[in-house]
């Protein structure tokens, strides 16, 4: 069993979001970077669990990004995984990123490709679906449980107001979310071991981006909270009805 796990670098959840260069560039100074939580907690940890069950499983991590993503890749390798591949391309276009991952997947003959359900910066939810299409593989999105069953996988995915259990033949692309696994903290052995694990850097294949970001914008600041006395909740209901007009 060979699994490819897609890893992305994102600003920490609590990072202050601001932009520079006339609102065209994320203000990265002083920002702490993390592994995109969905990639780490759900996709990577679930893959590690599968390897713990079957030690012959091979885990490859792939990231598309510049050299500044390497600390994140080492952190991911400290959690688990056998080796990592970095495609040397910095792009905000989902299709360009997905096409690079598809190229790696094509060369590596993986049984499974795991992604997080979305990144917490671009919120595109697009990489998994695009990779699946480029490889002509089935795609299960927003999975909450995943079990291997010989040459098949049983996957539970979220549907509106409930869940659906699917069975699909491998290979398959799965986007992972809460429920797949529990967050882990890397231990010292993992951190030491990660330093010597192979991290291969490959140059990107030529892809024409489909989109480009013209500018960023911050939402207008909130006017501030209007406090209502706890003795008069009826006043709150009046304000919601007459002022905010939400019902």
């Amino acid at each position: 069993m060979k699994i490819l796990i897609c890893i992305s670098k994102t600003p920490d959840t609590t990072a202050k979001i601001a932009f520079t260069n006339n609102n065209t560039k994320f203000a990265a100074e002083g920002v702490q970077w993390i592994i995109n939580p969905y990639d780490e907690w759900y996709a990577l940890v679930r893959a590690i669990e599968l390897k713990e069950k079957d030690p012959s499983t091979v885990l490859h991590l792939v990231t598309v990004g510049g050299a500044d993503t390497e600390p994140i890749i080492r952190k991911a390798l400290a959690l688990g995984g056998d080796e990592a591949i970095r495609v040397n391309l910095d792009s905000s276009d989902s299709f360009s990123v997905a096409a690079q991952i598809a190229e790696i997947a094509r060369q590596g003959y993986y049984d499974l490709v795991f992604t997080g359900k979305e990144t917490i910066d671009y919120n595109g939810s697009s990489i998994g679906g695009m990779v699946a299409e480029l490889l002509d593989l089935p795609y299960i999105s927003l999975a909450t449980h995943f079990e291997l069953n010989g040459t098949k996988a049983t996957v539970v995915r979220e549907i509106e107001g409930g869940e659906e259990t699917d069975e699909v033949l491998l290979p398959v692309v799965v986007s992972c979310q809460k429920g797949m696994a529990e967050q882990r903290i890397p231990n010292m052995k993992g951190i030491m071991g990660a330093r010597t694990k192979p991290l291969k850097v490959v140059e990107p294949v030529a892809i024409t981006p489909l989109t480009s970001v013209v500018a960023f914008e911050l939402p207008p600041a909130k006017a501030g909270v209007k406090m209502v006395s706890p003795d008069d909740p009826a006043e709150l209901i009046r304000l919601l009805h007459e002022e905010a007009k939400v019902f």
Partner: protein
Amino acid sequence: MSVLVYIDHSEGHFKKASLEALSYGAKLASQLGVTAEALLLGTVSEDLASLGAYGAVKVHQVGQESLNQLDAGRYARLVAEAVKATGATVVVIANNLCGKAVAPRLSARLKAALVAGAVALPDTSKGFVVKKNVYSGKAFAHVSLDTAIKIIALNPNAYPVSKGEGKAEVSALNVAVDPSKVTVLSTTQASGQVPLTEAEIVVSGGRGLKGPENWGMIEELAKLLGAATACSRPVADAHWRPHNEHVGQTGIAIAPNLYIAIGISGAIQHLAGVNRSKVIVVINKDPEAPFFKAADYGIAGDAFEVVPKMIEAVKKLKGMA
């Protein structure tokens, strides 16, 4: 030339998010001087011609019952066929669970630019630029779609449904449907409830409610307001409420017109899932709770005293008491 709007459905009914997408698509079509057409895969109990009232001139259907089950690969192939058949230059799809599965595949298949999570109509004054949510609701990006065919995945509750008069012409789209690669073994669904992502009002409870036995008042308030119920992560993790009610960064991200948070302190991870709500109300015993900073209205008070009084006031407003 047309704008093709994908219509998602469940339990025989059009999804509200898709009616929003159709209203958006019709407005965009008139902006571009073309017509809006709709595409439905599978079968519904509603009258397809009624989509005319939302601006569709034509409705294309691939009416096989097996298509009522989502298979992203199969759907993307069929939508791509419909794009070809209609000569559509823009595809609009709701950015709900179905859209998130299908739109990226369609984008890769057609090599067509996708904006996932659009919140406004395109700016066509210079190119084709669409505003979308980024950084988990903390910012917007204006994304230029640089290909001849463009795909817009519209966030639910970002564009109002606009209903007028009119009937659409309904026709069957004649395409081959291959068997699904995904076998559905079982489905569990709480039917008859307002889906969280489509709800206009959401009433949400947190740890401050002390235990699952105290959710009666949350449910009563929600029912009176026609709202969906939600909860914070600790509540779902403690199994006080089902996981599909968990809103926040790791749960579901929502953008209702009104979000009422009761007994939730407002951790940044929770805010990431609800900060796109148009109006936020916070009820919390602790006047220092961080959530008040993100709120529009607040009451610093005991939920067990405040919420029953809110229920009384809503009943009075609705002429029920």
